[in-house]
């Protein structure tokens, strides 16, 4: 990061190669699709280039700081953007080509993804960071700028909410 602040382009290239995937991953989970996630990550990298000097190496690791930049950008966008209407018939697929088993599997995946997407943003971010990105509780709390107790509270409520959503959907499906 020090090299990047000094304008070293090799340092920037190394950062992208090493870390772009993990930031794109968290952005995709938050945004719900890869196209929007790429936009968010790209904007975060532009911010990195224009304000790398704002990163305080003594205050924490680069990845923690940049997770915060990316996730804040995603949350801002989600709050700003109203969900666009889906085109008519977007969910009509050629169901004849699929077996019952694969249809059930697809429905299950959609139900789980839907339950995850319906969580409040902060709960979703907490689960994404701790469960999918496998950050330690300390790191995830730093990314979210909260203490560990608050993080655990978000995780617990998020998981409980998912459980109850999935239980309702399961009973509806059956």
């Amino acid at each position: 990061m020090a090299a990047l602040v000094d304008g070293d382009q090799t340092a920037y290239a190394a950062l992208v190669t090493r870390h772009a995937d993990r930031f794109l991953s968290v952005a995709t989970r938050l945004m719900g699709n890869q196209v929007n996630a790429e936009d968010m990550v790209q904007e975060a990298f532009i911010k990195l280039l224009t304000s790398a000097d704002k990163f305080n190496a003594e205050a924490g690791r680069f990845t923690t700081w940049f997770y915060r930049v990316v996730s804040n950008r995603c949350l801002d966008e989600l709050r700003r953007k109203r969900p666009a209407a889906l085109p008519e018939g977007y969910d009509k697929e050629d169901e004849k080509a699929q077996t019952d088993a694969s249809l059930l599997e697809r429905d299950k995946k959609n139900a789980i993804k839907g339950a995850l997407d319906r969580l409040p943003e902060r709960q979703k971010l907490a689960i994404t960071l701790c469960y999918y990105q496998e950050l330690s509780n300390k790191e995830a709390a730093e990314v979210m700028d909260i203490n560990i107790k608050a993080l655990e509270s978000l995780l617990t409520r998020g998981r409980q909410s998912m459980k109850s959503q999935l239980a309702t959907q399961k009973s509806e499906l059956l």
Partner: protein
Amino acid sequence: MRTIERKIFKEIVEAYGAKAAHWPADMRDSCEDFAASQEGSEILRGALALDASLDIVPAPTPASQVFLAKLQALPKQVKAASSVTRASLLEKLRWRIPELNNWLRPGALSAQGTALATALVLGVWVGGQEAVAEQTPFDEELALLELTPQADSNLDDLLLDEALEEKQQ
């Protein structure tokens, strides 16, 4: 070995799930010990189902080479954009401040320039006139002062000449 209470283990599992890898590092060993007990496995059972559901959600596709190339190209773009930004700062100000916008229109620039030049010339001329106006009374007075002695001396000379002529007669 540190032991933990059932309540704490339950709280940890409810927050972090059933996978030991996700548990807080400083409590992982004692949690694993508790998880091996019957009480522990009962608590884990509830969390395992949700973990399995979360695992079904497919992992996002890794960053494509095209996207990575786009990110790698950003420094050049940011550098180019910053020079354009400097050049367009005035342009942005034009649209933010309508008065400035009116003043900076190409057509208006010559008119404004002419008006400014006229005002400048008028200002200098008026200033000059004021300076002359301020100087005139003083100069006239000075001239009078200069003329009066001269006139007086001329009169004296005339009177002297007349007196000499009378004496001679």
